[in-house]
């Protein structure tokens, strides 16, 4: 079983992100359960969306406290709130942000990836909605899903220009992280 926790503000598309990610796992033949948890139910309030996925139907209905993966849609949430709370020893976090984001100290086997998803989204979609870029980055960072399934999920969800833009956004997010990983690997050798 894998557990993914998404941190966002209400209105930033976290539920769509969870639904898309869940659908990608569904296309892989797995059994995802994607669900939101609302705080104060109004725009801008911090909220979570979750995906729990297994090869069998998921029965556990609680929120996710020890995620394998964390996706931070809005890095301003990291001020004064620990988005990495309970992250597994070998967990991976994908954060929408640039170098200026202050990242908490992580454990030896944990990995953190920064992706300027809003910038990429502005270029590809025309609006600073980094969700599909983050999912592309998630695919590259975790190796859990592939870009083809992600594009298929985006095609089902969006149409017209939004569809093209989001497919591009996911691709660029994927490439951004793939390059960062191969650059890191080259530097390490």
């Amino acid at each position: 079983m894998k557990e993914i926790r998404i941190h966002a503000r209400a209105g930033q598309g976290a539920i769509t992100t969870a639904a898309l990610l869940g659908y990608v796992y569904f296309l892989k033949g797995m059994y995802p359960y994607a669900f939101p948890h609302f705080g104060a139910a109004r725009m801008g309030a911090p909220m979570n969306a979750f995906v729990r996925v297994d090869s069998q139907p998921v029965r556990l209905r609680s929120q996710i406290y020890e995620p394998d993966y964390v996706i931070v849609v809005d890095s301003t949430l990291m001020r004064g709130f620990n988005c990495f709370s309970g992250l597994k020893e070998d967990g991976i976090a994908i954060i929408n942000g640039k170098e200026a984001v202050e990242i908490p100290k992580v454990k030896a086997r944990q990995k953190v990836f920064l992706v300027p998803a809003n910038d990429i989204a502005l270029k590809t979609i025309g609006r600073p909605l980094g969700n599909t870029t983050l999912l592309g980055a998630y695919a590259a960072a975790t190796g859990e899903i592939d870009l083809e399934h992600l594009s298929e999920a985006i095609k089902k969800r969006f149409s017209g220009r939004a569809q093209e833009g989001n497919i591009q956004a996911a691709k660029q997010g994927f490439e951004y992280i793939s390059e960062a990983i191969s650059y890191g690997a080259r530097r390490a050798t």
Partner: protein
Amino acid sequence: MKEFLEGSRVVAEIVKLCKPGVISAYPITPQTHIVEELAQFVASGESDAQFVNVESEHSAASVVLGGSASGVRVYTATSSQGLFYMAEVLFNIAGLRLPVLMTCANRAISAPINIWNDQQDSVSLRDSGWIQLYAEDIQEVADLHLIGYRIAEDKSMMLPVMICMDGFTLTHGIETADMPSQELVNKFLPAYKPLYKLDVENPITMGPLVDPDYYMEARYAVQQTLREAIKFIPKVTAEFSKVFGRDYNGLIEGYRINDAERVIVAMGSVCGTVKETVDALRAKGKKVGLLKIMSYRPFPYEEIYAALKGIPRVAVLDRALSLGSYAPLAAEVKAAFFGKKKKPAVISSFVVGLGGRDITKDSIKEVFSLLTAKERVGEFIDLKPELLKEEY
């Protein structure tokens, strides 16, 4: 066909396949996506139903009452305060023997205001004469709606059915469900043929004033039918199984209880979390299990007695209260053993997950660990003592 869908969407799709003639709802909080999707289906011509957008839940219930009385299949959905606002009409619907089906997206009741999930809303309406069936997951939600219409509209029943699904957990949760084709739905659920209907050509009166000479018999008849429903529900689920291949008995479900020493009794989506916890504890050699209640009304006393009579310790989880008395589900499970010789040595009662308080595997483990020789009465799990200090 297996699809990955939000619970509310699943309900809307299933209701569309059931081809109701009238759908009525009050469109704002505490409403769900269910009627939003149905309104869309009607607007786009995918559904022939007449969608009546009303100014309150009281009116929504009244419209489906009228629709059903005029002889068509009807549907509505609500939760929480909305369900309470329907309350007097709901008693009328049952008393008039109208086979209305509604979905209750279980949510907490004010005050304090809280939009999150528990089961206080539907549990509080247990005395209304409606059959109440509780779903554990989204597949069950889908299936229970089909089963519900069949039960409601059978000539031996003619009673309304409320399908209860946990708010957010199931209404806003997205998971895989096997969605039926129109052909299979038609095969299982034929068009509704009313016994009586309001018809200007052949006028009858429904719901007249009934004086003390007749009232008790009408109420007795509802009670008697609900008793018969305990035998009838498993017949419908057996037919459902023949068409769709999924087995329910519709009343209760035992999970790893055969050799169990400690068993939790629960309703709704929390049963999934309990099953996970049972498997984890079983892996460590603990003999634990779950008894899921699917039918809260009618309450299957005899089936519960038979399932639990040999279990040494039983814990009942309530996600609602009867303020000033025992927790409602616990009281009835205990009543199933009243006067019986063979029964659990301990039946403890726990209150969990009110107003959306998360129920984790640890919460369930705590219940099992508190299920000792000492009987617990309405003990709250995951309570925060620091919030209970009195300050003026």
